[in-house]
């Protein structure tokens, strides 16, 4: 099957919007965002956050939607094909390989986290989660439950001579993902997202109402009210060594955190939006649809994520309990909160089921770019490409699960692919759109079938502001994070093996791209 013969399309406009927003809404909206706000200036964080949304998130999003539809209407659906066509230079196909590598590798560990969510949801539903009778030990017990659930105590897939339970949960989630993706863009992804997104919203709203009506649940701590919980997150806070919260706006860390949150939350630079947009028809709108998908993501992040997690943790655990990273807050702190909360088992189930839906709509979106790539480059059908991708991701995922001690493999993949390469790909995409494709041509293409026009300032922003902004943040981020991870690599061990797996996957994709180049040259106009 040639790329040109691939006639898959979205069945409806609302379907593609829900699929793209489902791809963007994930654990980060509910767990990472509130922690970032509380730790980086409180309400003051929202100023750099919205500036990054306007200058970075939305412009890159529009560029990806436009390039995806442009190439899709010419028969290209994978990042290498899209990059080759848009640039008119074959070398860009190899740069586009990053746009396939990122979703594949992220899927390898994301599906593992997704299985934790389903496992927790089932534990609440069946009443099998118990943190003991002593409230003072809830925190410790919650940590032990997490370690036992994910198998983080030691490496390997077995425990006490039997396959670890986490492996069965992972297998179930893995099969669900591939069952859905096998049914294609419209019948698989779109149909599922049309069901999952409203259910996810409903679950989140029920939990939100529960949290906002908690009042002052513990009379021993009258200051632990919902209002103070909201204040803990939203009150603007001065940085260390200052009394004025406005000083937070001159703090580089606050800008770095806000920009990073927008950047990772909107799923730009993942290679996913380009692929999803390639299934639009030539005269389908991209401007309003792109903005709608982004605003849906923001709704889940600011209006739901921003009002649930931190206030819930604050009213039961106080200020010290309301701070934590994504995993700490989600899988250690919140189970303690549900122990205290009236009807905690029910709300715990709703919460983790909602996280599971948020995760599966994201993980599905990570598979489709790779399937499109294999179909195009190797000229194989969906069944073969699903089988090939299934074997590849199964190997990577089992690698992550095997090296589960301290979650080192997962953390290494998340750093080098889920963060570092995303910055690289986003920057390259901006350069491709603004400097190679050209902003004039890009704007004309975006306006084809558009229901609203791009702002007049868009060409200037995407050509100058977005790349400079991205590179500046990237340099600061590298200075802060890179030395530690390079140090870890030089120590060898699991981190080095993980980079080896990433490198081997990249090499495999380069070989497939080279083979695809011959096919593309033979079947299409030269790119």
């Amino acid at each position, binding site marked *: 099957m040639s790329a040109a013969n691939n006639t898959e399309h979205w069945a409806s406009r*609302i379907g593609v919007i829900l699929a793209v927003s489902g791809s963007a809404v994930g654990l980060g909206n509910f767990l990472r965002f509130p922690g970032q706000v509380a730790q980086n200036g409180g*309400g003051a964080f929202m100023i750099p956050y919205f500036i990054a949304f306007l200058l970075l998130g939305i412009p890159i999003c529009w560029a990806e939607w436009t390039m995806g539809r442009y190439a899709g209407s010419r028969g290209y659906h994978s990042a290498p094909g899209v990059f080759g066509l848009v640039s008119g230079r074959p070398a860009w196909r190899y740069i586009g390989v990053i746009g396939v590598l990122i979703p594949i590798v992220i899927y390898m560990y994301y599906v593992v986290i997704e299985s934790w969510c389903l496992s927790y949801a089932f534990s609440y539903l069946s009443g099998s989660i118990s943190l003991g009778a002593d409230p003072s030990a809830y925190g410790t017990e919650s940590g032990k439950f997490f370690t036992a659930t994910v198998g983080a105590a030691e490496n390997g897939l077995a425990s006490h001579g039997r396959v670890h339970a986490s492996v069965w949960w992972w297998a179930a989630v893995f099969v669900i993902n591939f069952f859905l993706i096998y049914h294609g863009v419209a019948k698989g992804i779109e149909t599922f997202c049309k069901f999952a997104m409203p259910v996810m919203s409903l679950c989140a709203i029920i939990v939100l109402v529960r949290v906002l009506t908690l009042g002052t649940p513990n009379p021993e701590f009258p200051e632990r009210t919902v209002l103070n919980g909201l204040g803990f997150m939203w*009150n*603007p806070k001065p940085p260390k060594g200052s009394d004025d*919260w406005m000083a937070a706006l001159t703090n580089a860390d606050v800008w770095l955190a806000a920009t990073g949150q927008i950047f990772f939350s909107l799923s730009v630079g993942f290679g996913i939006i380009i692929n999803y947009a390639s299934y639009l028809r030539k005269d389908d709108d991209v401007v*309003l649809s792109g903005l709608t998908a982004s605003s849906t993501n*923001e*709704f889940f992040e600011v*209006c739901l994520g921003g009002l649930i997690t931190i206030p819930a943790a604050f009213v039961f655990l106080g200020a010290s309990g309301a701070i934590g990273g994504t995993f700490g807050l989600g899988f250690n702190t919140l189970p303690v909160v549900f122990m205290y909360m009236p009807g905690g088992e029910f709300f715990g189930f709703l919460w983790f089921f909602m996280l599971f839906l948020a995760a599966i709509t994201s993980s599905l979106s990570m598979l489709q770019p790779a399937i499109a790539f294999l179909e195009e480059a190797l000229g194989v059908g969906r069944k073969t490409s699903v089988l090939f991708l299934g074997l590849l991701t199964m190997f990577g995922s089992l690698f992550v699960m095997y090296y589960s001690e301290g979650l080192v493999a997962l953390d290494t993949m998340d750093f080098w692919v889920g963060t570092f390469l995303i910055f690289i790909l986003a920057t390259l995409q901006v350069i491709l759109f603004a400097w190679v494709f050209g902003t004039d041509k890009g704007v004309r293409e975006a306006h084809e079938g558009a*229901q609203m026009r791009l702002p007049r300032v868009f060409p200037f922003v995407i050509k100058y502001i977005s790349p400079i902004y991205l590179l500046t943040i990237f340099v600061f981020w590298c200075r802060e994070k890179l030395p530690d991870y390079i140090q870890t690599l030089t120590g060898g061990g699991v981190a080095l093996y993980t980079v080896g797996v990433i490198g081997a996957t990249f090499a495999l994709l380069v070989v497939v791209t080279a083979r695809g180049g011959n096919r593309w040259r033979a079947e299409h106009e030269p790119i």
Partner: protein
Amino acid sequence: MTLAGWIFMIGSIAVVVSLLVFCYYNVLCAPDKADHMHGRFDVDTPDLEKKHI
């Protein structure tokens, strides 16, 4: 919760909800593409009719 905290929280939510409502209103209330298409019998061609007469 301080006054500034209220302003940031309500302001942020208002911005996001306004954007969301604007987008979904335009997406859902926009005329469907099918509305712009006409079947061949809907197309009025009076000049041809006159010719036949």
